[in-house]
C-alpha cells in the first residue's frame, strides 16, 4: 500500500511515541509488526477472511523462535544466576580472595574486580552481582576509609562485567537474532572482556599508588602471615587446585578408556583431553604436583586450603559451564542446564538449599524470562514484518549509497548505541536496532574496518560487531540517567550516598569502558585471537 520509505518513517516515529507513553516494549513492537503488515498489504487484504492471511506470518515468526533449542539457555542461565546470588558462595569467595591481597594497597578494590570477573564467568546477567558486591565489599571499603568514588565505581563497573565475559545473555540474544554462532561469540569476547577487567585493575593500582590516601591499608591482624610466607601459601593453594583438576581429568580419561568410549573412530571427533595418551600426561602432572605439595609440607597445604577454599565452588561452576561448552561435551543449552545442576549440588553440600530459596529463585527466573522472551517475541515479529516490507535492505542501501567513510558509519552507530543505551534496556536495542544495523555493517567493505591489525575475515564481521555491541552495553549499565548498576547499588548502599554521588563515581570507569570500546573499534582482529 505504502512504499518502504513511508513505512520506515511512520514506523520510526510510532516506536518513539509508543515507548514514550510507556507501552511495554515487547507488546509495542508486536503491535507495530501488525501495523507494518497493514501498511504493506492494506487492511482489506489482511482482514479479508477470518483465520488466515498474512497476519499469520507474525504467529509463525513467534513459533519459529519459540522452538529454537538455544533459547532454552536463557531461562536456565537466569535460574542459575538467581540460585548463585542467593547462596553464600559469593561472600565466602570474597574472604578467600581478600586473604591474599589484604596487605596490598587498594587490595579490596582489586579483590572486588577479580571477584566480579569470577562471578561474571559463572553467570551471564548483571544486577545480582552489583547487589552482592555492594553488600559485601562496599561496607569494607568504606570502613577502611577508601575514597567513596573509587569504591562505588569499582563495584558497579566490575559488577557489570557479567554480560561481557562468557557466558553472556546479551551475546546469546544477539547470536539468536543474527544467527551468529554463540560459541564463537563467547570465544571472541574472552579477550575484550579480560582486557576491560584488567584496565579496571590497572586503573585501581595506578590511582592508589599515586594517591595512597584513596585506599588506606588495614591494620595487620594478629594472625597475619608475612608476605614471603603468603606467596608460598598461595603457590601451595594453586598446586592443590591444579592437582585436584588434574585428578578429575585423570579419572575422566581412565573412565573413558575403561568403557572404551575414546577409541579412535573414523569420522568421530576425538574427545578433548580424553584420548588414552592423556592417562600418562595427567598421571605425570599429578606426580609433579604431589612432589611439590610434599615439598611445601602438609601443614602448609592444610593452612592454604583453609585460606582459599572459598574459591573452589566458583571454580567448579565455571569448570562445569565453560568446560561443557569448550570441552565439546554439550551445547550452550546443556551447559546452562549443567550449570544449574552444579549450583544446586553445591548449595546442597553447603546446606544452604531450602525449599523457599529454590521457590524464590524460580519466581525471579520466571519474571526475568517473561520479560526478556516477550520482548524477543515482539521484536522478532516486528523485524520479520519489516523485512517482508523490504526495510533492512532499503536502509542498508541508503547508508551504503551515501558513500560515507566506513569507519564514520561505525562511529555513528557506536554513538547511537551509547545514546540509546542511556535510555533503554540492552534487550530492546539488540532486538529492535540490530536487524537494521547489522545488514549495513555486513555490506561495508570488510578491509576498511578498523585501523590496525589484519583485516577481519568476512565471516567474523558479525561476531566482531556483536562483541562491539556487548562492550557498548557495558557503558549503558553505568550511564546516567538510568544506568541500572547505579540503582542496584543505591538500593544496598548507606543512605547518605545519593544517586548523584554514585554516578559521579562512575566517570573514570565510563572513560575506561570507552577506551576499551575504542580499542575494539580500531583493532578488530583482537577478537580473532582465540577463534
Amino acid at each position, binding site marked *: 500500500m505504502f512504499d518502504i520509505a513511508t513505512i520506515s518513517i511512520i514506523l520510526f516515529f510510532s516506536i518513539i511515541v509508543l515507548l514514550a507513553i510507556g507501552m511495554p516494549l515487547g507488546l509495542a513492537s508486536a503491535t507495530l509488526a501488525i501495523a507494518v503488515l497493514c501498511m504493506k498489504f492494506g487492511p482489506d487484504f489482511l482482514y479479508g477472511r477470518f483465520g488466515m492471511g498474512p497476519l499469520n506470518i507474525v504467529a509463525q515468526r513467534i513459533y519459529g523462535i519459540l522452538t529454537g533449542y538455544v533459547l532454552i539457555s536463557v531461562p536456565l542461565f537466569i535460574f542459575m544466576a538467581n540460585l548463585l546470588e542467593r547462596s553464600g558462595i559469593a561472600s565466602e569467595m570474597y574472604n578467600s580472595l581478600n586473604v591474599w591481597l589484604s596487605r596490598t594497597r587498594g587490595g579490596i578494590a582489586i579483590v572486588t574486580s577479580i571477584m566480579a570477573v569470577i562471578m561474571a564467568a559463572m553467570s551471564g546477567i548483571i544486577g545480582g552481582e552489583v547487589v552482592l558486591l555492594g553488600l559485601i565489599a562496599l561496607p569494607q571499603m568504606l570502613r577502611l576509609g577508601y575514597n567513596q568514588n573509587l569504591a562505588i565505581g569499582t563495584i558497579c563497573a566490575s559488577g557489570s562485567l557479567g554480560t561481557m565475559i562468557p557466558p553472556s545473555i546479551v551475546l546469546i540474544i544477539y547470536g539468536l537474532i543474527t544467527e551468529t554462532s554463540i560459541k564463537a561469540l563467547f570465544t571472541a569476547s574472552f579477550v575484550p572482556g579480560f582486557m576491560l577487567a584488567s584496565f579496571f585493575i590497572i586503573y585501581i593500582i595506578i590511582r592508589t599508588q599515586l594517591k595512597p590516601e584513596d585506599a588506606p591499608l588495614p591494620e595487620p591482624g594478629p594472625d597475619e602471615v608475612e608476605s614471603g610466607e603468603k606467596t608460598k601459601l598461595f603457590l601451595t593453594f594453586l598446586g592443590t587446585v591444579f592437582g585436584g583438576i588434574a585428578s578429575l581429568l585423570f579419572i575422566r580419561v581412565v573412565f573413558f578408556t575403561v568403557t572404551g568410549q575414546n577409541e579412535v573412530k573414523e569420522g568421530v571427533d576425538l574427545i578433548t583431553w580424553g584420548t588414552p595418551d592423556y592417562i600418562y600426561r595427567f598421571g605425570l602432572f599429578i606426580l609433579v604436583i604431589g612432589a611439590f605439595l610434599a615439598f611445601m609440607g602438609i601443614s602448609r597445604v592444610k593452612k592454604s586450603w583453609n585460606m582459599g577454599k572459598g574459591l573452589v565452588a566458583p571454580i567448579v561452576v565455571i569448570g562445569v559451564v565453560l568446560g561443557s561448552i569448550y570441552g565439546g561435551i554439550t551445547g550452550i543449552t546443556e551447559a546452562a542446564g549443567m550449570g544449574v545442576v552444579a549450583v544446586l549440588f553445591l548449595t546442597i553440600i553447603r546446606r544452604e538449599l531450602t525449599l523457599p*530459596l529454590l521457590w524464590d529463585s524460580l519466581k525471579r527466573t520466571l519474571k526475568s524470562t517473561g520479560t526478556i522472551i516477550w520482548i524477543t517475541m515482539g521484536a522478532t515479529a516486528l523485524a520479520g514484518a519489516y523485512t517482508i516490507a523490504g526495510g533492512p535492505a532499503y536502509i542498508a542501501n541508503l547508508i551504503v549509497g551515501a558513500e560515507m567513510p566506513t569507519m564514520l558509519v561505525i562511529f555513528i552507530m557506536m554513538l547511537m548505541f551509547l545514546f540509546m543505551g542511556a535510555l533503554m534496556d540492552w534487550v530492546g536495542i539488540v532486538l529492535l536496532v540490530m536487524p537494521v544495523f547489522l545488514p549495513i555493517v555486513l555490506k561495508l567493505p570488510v578491509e576498511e574496518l578498523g585501523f590496525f591489525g589484519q583485516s577481519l575475515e568476512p565471516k567474523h564481521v558479525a561476531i566482531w560487531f556483536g562483541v562491539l555491541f556487548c562492550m557498548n552495553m557495558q557503558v549503558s549499565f553505568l550511564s546516567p540517567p538510568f544506568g541500572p548498576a547505579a540503582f542496584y547499588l543505591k538500593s544496598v548502599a548507606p543512605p547518605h550516598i545519593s544517586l548523584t554521588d554514585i554516578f559521579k563515581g562512575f566517570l573514570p570507569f565510563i572513560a575506561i569502558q570507552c577506551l576499551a570500546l575504542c580499542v575494539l573499534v580500531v583493532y578488530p582482529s583482537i577478537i580473532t585471537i582465540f577463534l
Partner: protein
Amino acid sequence: MGQNIKVLKEILWPSIFILSLTLTIAVFPNFIITLGWASDDFLSIHEGKIGLVNLIVVLIGVVALVLGTLTVSHSENEIAPENIFDKFALFIGRVTMLLVVSLVTAMFAEVVLRYVFEAPTLWANELCLWMSGFVFLLSGLYAMQQRNHIRIYLLYDILPRNIQRLCDTVSVLLILFFAFSMVYGGFGEAQAKFLRWETFGTAWDPPLPATIKPTILIAIILVAVQSLVNLIADWNKVPQSHSPIDETEVESIVQQNQRES
C-alpha cells in the same frame, strides 16, 4: 519447617494440574475422536475412544485449576493478587515454575544417560523444547500480572496522573488490537494443527505444533486480558515513581544473604 510446608502447599495443586494435563495430552487423539472433531484422514491414523478414567483425570485437572487459582498465595516479594484474574495468572506462574524444574531434570537425565551410561534418550531434548515453549509463553502472563514487562518511564513518570491514564488506555487498546489481529490471522492454522494433532516429525515426535500453536494465541489473549485487568485495578492508584530496576529482586537477595550471616 513451616516455610517448607508452605511451599509444598503451593506446589500441590500446580503439580496435580500438570499431571492431569500430561495424562490428558498423552491420549488426546482419543478425545478428538470422541468429541466428534476428527476428520476422515484423522480416523485413518488414530483409533480409540476415551474411557471413564480419562474423564476423571480431566475432572481432577479442572478441580486442581479451580482450587489452585482460589487458594494461590503470594510471597512478600510479589505484587499481591487483587482479583480472580490475578490469582489465575499467579497459579499459571506456579505451574510454569514447576515446568522449569522438570526441564532442568530432563536435561540432567539426558546428559547423565548420554555421557555416563552411553544410552542417549530420544525424548529428553524434544521434551525440553516442548516444555520450554510453554514456559516462554506463560511466563509472559506472570510478568504482566507482576507489572514486570519492560517499559520506558522517562516521559511517563513526569506526566500528570490523568494523562498517564490516557497513555495506559491507549496501550491497552493497542495490545487488545494486537491480540485480535493475531487471533484473526492465526486461528485457522492453530485450529487445523490442533485438530490434526500435528506432531513434530522427529524421533520421539511430540505433538508440539498441535499444542504450541494454539498456546501462542491463548497466551497472547491472556496477556492482553491481564493488561486490561491491570488497567482497571491500577486506575485509582496514586502515581508511583518507577526505578529502572526491580527493587523486590534486591530485597530478596539481601534477605537471603542476611539469613546466612
